[in-house]
């Protein structure tokens, strides 16, 4: 708990100096690769459509003819009402769903199926209950055949970053919902994917826990410079995190704009005229009157 507060604070007051922090040698291993990573982890959707067949025989086009490019290092928030295709969009990039038409590229490669280069934080609880916390975080490394000492080093590092070192040997059943979400976050970052996909990862958490985890997420993103696609139905969450926000509706991208708010995004920044304007626009896309904003920020799906 204590560590998490520290790291989330760090992300808010150190802002762009994180890069300096990293090169100062504070972190090692996976995190160090930021500098020498192949620069192109762009995600490109090229005229992608996904059509599902419902069990009653109806066809549903979840996303239709979507073109989208997410640049390396961007933190793209995807917002939209429930059932409008957000999860499908993410699953197509993850490789869990094959596009019915079009193609998906990561860097220069067209992707087919899942791969460890794209990590996912799932909407539901995907922490394995039969693995202790540390083994959950190290699962992806074990799959890759990383040896135990190296694995333990990386796992320890990420457990510390999300503030869970003290429960490394615990079973997931002994953790709160918020702690389990941290396990999921640490698991994905420990895997060092090129692209990180998060599907309303904190949607089921209480307000305070969610704020903390948003801090953890920002911190890790700033440390690692990953490309992140972050699905949320929470406008405030998007405003807090995103470098760019798209609105998905009816299977299309309805709106796509950068968010140029300064960081840390404190009360003042989030009350600036630009923030107010962005919030108003996003809420109207969701079919809500502006002013209901603070209430929306706290709804759970």
């Amino acid at each position, binding site marked *: 708990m204590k560590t998490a507060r520290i790291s989330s604070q760090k992300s808010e007051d150190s802002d762009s100096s994180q890069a300096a922090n990293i090169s100062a040698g504070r972190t090692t291993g996976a995190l160090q690769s930021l500098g020498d990573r192949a620069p192109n982890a762009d995600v490109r959707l090229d005229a992608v459509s996904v059509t599902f067949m419902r069990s009653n025989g109806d066809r549903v086009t979840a996303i239709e003819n979507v073109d989208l490019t997410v640049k390396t290092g961007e933190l793209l928030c995807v917002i939209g009402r429930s059932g409008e295709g957000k999860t499908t969009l993410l699953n197509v990039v*993850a490789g*869990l769903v094959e596009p019915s038409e079009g193609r998906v590229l990561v860097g220069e490669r067209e992707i087919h199926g*899942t*791969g460890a280069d794209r*990590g996912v934080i799932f909407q539901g609880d995907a922490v*394995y209950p039969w693995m202790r916390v540390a083994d959950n975080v190290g699962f992806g490394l074990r*799959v890759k055949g990383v040896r135990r000492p190296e694995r333990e080093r990386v796992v320890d590092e990420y457990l510390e970053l999300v503030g869970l070192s003290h429960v490394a040997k615990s079973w997931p059943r002994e953790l709160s919902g918020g702690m389990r979400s941290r396990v999921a976050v640490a698991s994905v970052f420990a895997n060092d994917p090129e692209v990180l996909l998060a599907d309303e990862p904190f949607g089921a958490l209480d307000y305070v826990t969610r704020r903390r985890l948003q801090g953890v997420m920002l911190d890790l993103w700033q440390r690692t410079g990953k490309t992140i696609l972050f699905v949320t139905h929470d406008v405030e969450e998007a405003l807090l995190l995103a470098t760019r926000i798209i609105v998905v509706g009816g299977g299309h991208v309805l709106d796509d704009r950068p968010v140029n708010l300064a960081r840390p995004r404190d009360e003042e920044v989030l009350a600036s005229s630009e923030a107010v304007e962005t919030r108003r626009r996003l809420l109207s896309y969701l079919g809500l009157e502006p002013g209901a904003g603070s209430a929306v920020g706290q709804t759970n799906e």
Partner: protein
Amino acid sequence: MSNAPVRPLSPRRLAGSLISPVALRLEMVVLLAVTWELVAHYAVTRIGTSGEPIFPSLEYLAKDSFLQMSNYWSGGWGAPSPGNGGTQTYLGAVLALASASFASFGRLFAGVGLGFVLGVVLGLAVSASKAARSVLSSPVHFLRMVPFLALAPLFEVWFGKSDIGAIVFIGYGSLVVTFVGIVNAVGLVPAVQLARARTEGATRRQIYRWVILPSIVPAMRATILVIIGLGWTLDVAAEMLGAQSGLGVIMEYALRFAYTGRVILVSFVYLVYAAASFYAVQWLTGWAIRWHPSQAKARRRRRFSVKPALALK
């Protein structure tokens, strides 16, 4: 009053101590024993064709029927064989029951073990491949519908009066139950857990080894507990039909000559074994599901009660 160091035994507290779980269990046993004795001495006092009471009292069971168990001892270890003119001894009775039990336990564990291992292997194979599923699934589900006991005579015809027959019969029943349990459990592994493994780059093999297998462990354990119980039932049937040794053989003799006391004694021994093996397996395999959310409570409770929780049965 609430500060009094020793509280008087109020009627309420007395009532409370009489309905505590342990007291209740003891009271039930005493009640059963008393009822049994009343029935044996006053209600059903008829003597059967074998010259034994058809509802023997507890003292008759403990003395006469138990001593007669030595008739099934063929001599040795310091106890004579009554069948060859020796006297009936309590040692002989113990030896007869012990050697019969040994034979029955052997068949039970061989059969249940064989059935479980094959059931798990077949179940996993069928879950893994569409081809195997279409070939194997419906015949096994059909066999599941056939009452096991109805097949016992068939196994006797096929295997004759042999140990192998009994083991195969028990194994068959265990296999079918295990197979159905495994296929079902694999089908219930949450999709998000499989999806996670795929996105972390796991191969099919790795998914089986690290996701599917551990997640079906609770179901496997439940299956073992079920087939241990089933195994004893099938063991009785198999031994009564055609075996040279075992508790079922004693049971079959006793039944044929209407030795009611001995039938009751052997039934009681079966009961004890079935319960004991159930709890032993439950206790021994508890560690395998220590991660399971249901165990958070069970573990804490265990400190206060010796009786293992039945939550996962």
